[in-house]
């Protein structure tokens, strides 16, 4: 036993133990599952923030000076050009920067916009918050070993092994689940003088002691109603018009609501599904935490007689009249749910709202059956290729060929050991890379064997031929593998998922091929020489 033998033995045991202990994780393409790449719309998160602050300025100025001269245009907030106003905004909202004056709509306004640093902070916060919310939603979904991580500036990767219904998963992950309580603006009849387009109807109702008018449409004309509502913003003086389900089934109607929410799902403590004993329909009961309950109590006591809309994801679910002060902070959301919808809603409400909408930019789903099929075919193809290579090497190089094949076994041990050690996943292209590696490991030996044969041809003596063959062959091997290594590194850099697996396996294959051919195969060849069994 020389130093090479000892090194081989220790390393082989090390790789085998790690492989047996940690095992290799299979990629989604082999196990089945879904990969999603989401983009968090940080621009909308930022816009939401500007809108919110804009309305806050508006309501404070109205409170203080009884004037409503605030406009919100994209990222900019226009405040009436009055020194008091400007000073007030500067003092109360330091994250907004005074950008000078601008003439707009027959009046001069002071322009404010968010500071760059604050803008970045909001964008950053929205992504990290979205990551957290999505993680807890996936936990609700009950997936084993999900992987959720940030990818780049505003993207999130979600990997769900074994999920069979990607649509349900996407619905769960993708919905904003923003729950808001908003007062219905019944004090004046904003929509009174407007004529609706065809398919949209106008009706009147009594609310808060006033007669006000609203628009409604049948379900088939919902899109018409939605398009019409977009044109209404100019009539409602900064209030918002939202659509909700009407009292009768199959009908959708408009509500004019306060511009910002009085209370949101951020104060939620719990959400549970209950069954209505009369209609036998499920509904979701939400309970607010103590702070939320206090706000809710104050809100209800100050607005008795008005309607309070429960808005979920921009849609009004119900708008009951506040009869009296409500303490305890419990409310219910009814919306003719199926039991599954209700459960899902309760789950996303518990997990919290996304700070901004997300878009699915990339999806890759592999069904479990295809995964099994791939792994079976991939392994069989690799094994078959390996068998042919083995046969060829034994026939062509005899005992040296045997040494080379032992080298391949050590290379495979190295690859699997290292994959387990790094906790890397084995993907389908990764299996292909391993199949190729077999050819490449053997290549190292072929370079050396052919060199030995040349030396033998030159002077017919064995041991020195082998020594020279190894010495000269080594430089060539390093040069030759270096170029493949360079390519592998760049493939790793640009690829995601399965392709990274390919590059990783290729890299490990090159290193493993060196280990297998230079250490393991050489050890066998020395052994064969000693026992006079060597042949080439």
């Amino acid at each position, binding site marked *: 036993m020389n130093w090479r033998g000892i090194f081989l033995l220790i390393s082989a045991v090390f790789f085998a133990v790690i492989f047996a202990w940690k095992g290799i994780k299979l990629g989604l393409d082999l196990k089945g599952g879904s990969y999603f790449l989401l983009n968090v719309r940080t621009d909308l998160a930022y816009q939401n923030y500007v809108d919110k602050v804009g309305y806050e300025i508006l309501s404070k100025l109205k409170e203080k000076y009884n004037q409503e001269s605030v406009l919100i245009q994209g990222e900019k907030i226009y405040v009436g050009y009055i020194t008091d106003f400007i000073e007030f905004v500067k003092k109360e909202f330091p994250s907004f920067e005074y950008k000078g004056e601008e003439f707009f709509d027959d009046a001069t306004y002071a322009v404010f916009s968010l500071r760059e640093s604050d803008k970045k902070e909001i964008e950053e916060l929205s992504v990290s918050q979205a990551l957290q919310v999505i993680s807890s939603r996936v936990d609700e979904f009950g997936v084993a070993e999900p992987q959720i991580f940030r990818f780049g500036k505003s993207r999130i990767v979600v990997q769900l092994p074994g999920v069979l219904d990607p649509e349900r998963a996407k619905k769960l992950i993708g919905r904003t689940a923003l729950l808001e309580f908003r007062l219905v603006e019944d004090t004046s009849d904003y929509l009174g003088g407007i004529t609706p387009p065809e398919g949209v109807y106008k009706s009147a109702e009594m609310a808060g002691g006033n007669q006000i008018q609203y628009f409604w449409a049948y379900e088939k004309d919902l899109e018409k109603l939605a398009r019409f509502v977009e044109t209404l913003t100019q009539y409602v003086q900064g209030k918002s018009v939202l659509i909700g389900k009407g009292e009768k089934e199959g009908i959708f109607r408009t509500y004019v609501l306060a511009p910002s929410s009085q209370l949101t799902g951020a104060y939620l403590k719990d959400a549970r599904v209950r069954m209505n004993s009369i209609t036998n329909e499920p509904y979701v009961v939400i309970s607010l935490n103590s702070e939320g309950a206090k706000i809710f109590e104050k809100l209800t006591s100050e607005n008795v007689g008005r309607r309070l809309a429960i808005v979920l994801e921009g849609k009004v679910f119900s708008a009951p009249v506040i009869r009296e002060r409500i303490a305890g902070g419990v409310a219910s959301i009814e919306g003719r749910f199926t039991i599954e919808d209700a459960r899902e809603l309760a789950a996303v409400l518990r997990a919290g709202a996304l700070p901004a909408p997300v878009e699915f930019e990339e*999806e890759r789903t592999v069904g479990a059956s295809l995964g099994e099929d791939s792994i079976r075919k991939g392994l069989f193809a690799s094994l078959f290729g390996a068998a042919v290579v083995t046969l*060829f090497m034994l026939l062509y190089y005899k005992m040296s060929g045997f040494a080379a094949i032992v080298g391949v076994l050590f290379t495979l041990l190295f690859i699997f050991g290292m994959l387990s050690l790094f906790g890397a996943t084995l993907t389908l292209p990764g299996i292909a890379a391993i199949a190729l590696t077999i050819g490449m490991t053997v290549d190292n030996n072929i370079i050396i064997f052919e060199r030995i044969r040349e030396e033998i041809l030159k002077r017919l003596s064995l041991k020195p031929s082998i020594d020279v063959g190894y010495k000269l062959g080594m430089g060539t091997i390093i040069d030759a593998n270096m170029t493949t290594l360079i390519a592998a590194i760049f493939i790793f850099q640009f690829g995601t998922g399965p392709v990274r697996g390919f590059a990783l396996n290729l890299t490990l294959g090159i290193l493993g091929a060196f280990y297998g051919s230079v250490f393991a195969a050489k050890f066998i060849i020395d052994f064969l020489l000693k026992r006079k069994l060597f042949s080439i």
Partner: protein
Amino acid sequence: MKKAMGEKDKLKKKIFKEGEKKVEDAKRQDITPEEKKEIQEIARKEKKEVQEEKVPLEDKKETKIITPQPLKFFSVFPQGKIIKFMQARKFGYIISSILFIFSIFIILSGKVPLGIDFKGGFSADVKITSSSVNIEDLRTLIPEAYIQNLGENRFLIKLPLDIVERERTEEGLKKDPAQIISEKLKDLGGFEIIKVESVGSIIGRELREKGILAFVLSLLGIFIYISFRFEWRFAIGATLALIHDIVITLGIISSIGIELSIVTLAGLLTLAGYSVNDSVIVADRIREKLRFARGIWTSETINKAITSTLPRTIITGLTTLFPSVSLIIFGGEVLRDLGITFTIGIIVGTYSSVFICSAIAYDIYLSQHKRRGETQKQTAQQTTYAKVN
């Protein structure tokens, strides 16, 4: 880095010197069959002497190893013959030019079928489980989709990018194409998802840019590496051979309808490494032979180098081809494309390392010396040198 490389070269030189010392006969480069017999006879005599000499000097176990052994081996390659590759290089150029122009035409005329990874779009492979559905039903259900029957109630449904991008929700967010399809399929009853791939335009563009970047950078990386390790003529030869291999492989796989996806691109990049690998081994040997030939290039030296590395080139080609072909036959859909890419690439790469890489380096050398009007003089020198040897 340069310094490190220099040291490596020195080390290699040292090894060569040792080799020279040990192998006195190795100095002789061109051994005719007659001469070979002579040498073998001499060697046979010498060997006995060597044994007798070494017995007292070395360990007894060691001597056993040197005891005469059957040193014959099976080889399909002609031993001691030199194949005249350089003389045939015109044919190589012609074949390569035809293939190259054909491939460039395919690539530039936009006939490379891009997979949805790079183009963006949506594709779903679904199995209808509830009832037997024929393809016409699906076509009427989803008129905007391209639908292909895969057999056994399995269908491939593809949506082009513009439809995927057009669908938007009320809030102006992108509507998910998978959702649209699955909503429509739900009307048919049960279905099982075999595979879904959906890539948005932004990601598609990013992947395309990244792919091109990875491609260019790895070419550059490989070029820089071989420029450090080898003479610049070989660096140019190997890089041109590499571009030749990749372009022709891409041209051929495109013309047989294999889509360029992330996986096939990764395959092409691996081929880049493999192709240079082959060229490097030939170049390495030419460099070694040139050292013995005092740096004077002749077609003879290069032929010798290519011939002596030919067994390795072909056998490695074979041992890499076996798994690749196995992937085509047994590997299933994804691996089949990768297997075809490799198989074509290995064949083209092996060919170019023999016929193109060194031929280009040699022609660069010749054109340089022709310009100086030294060619004839040099060839004359060479012949005398060869004779003396």
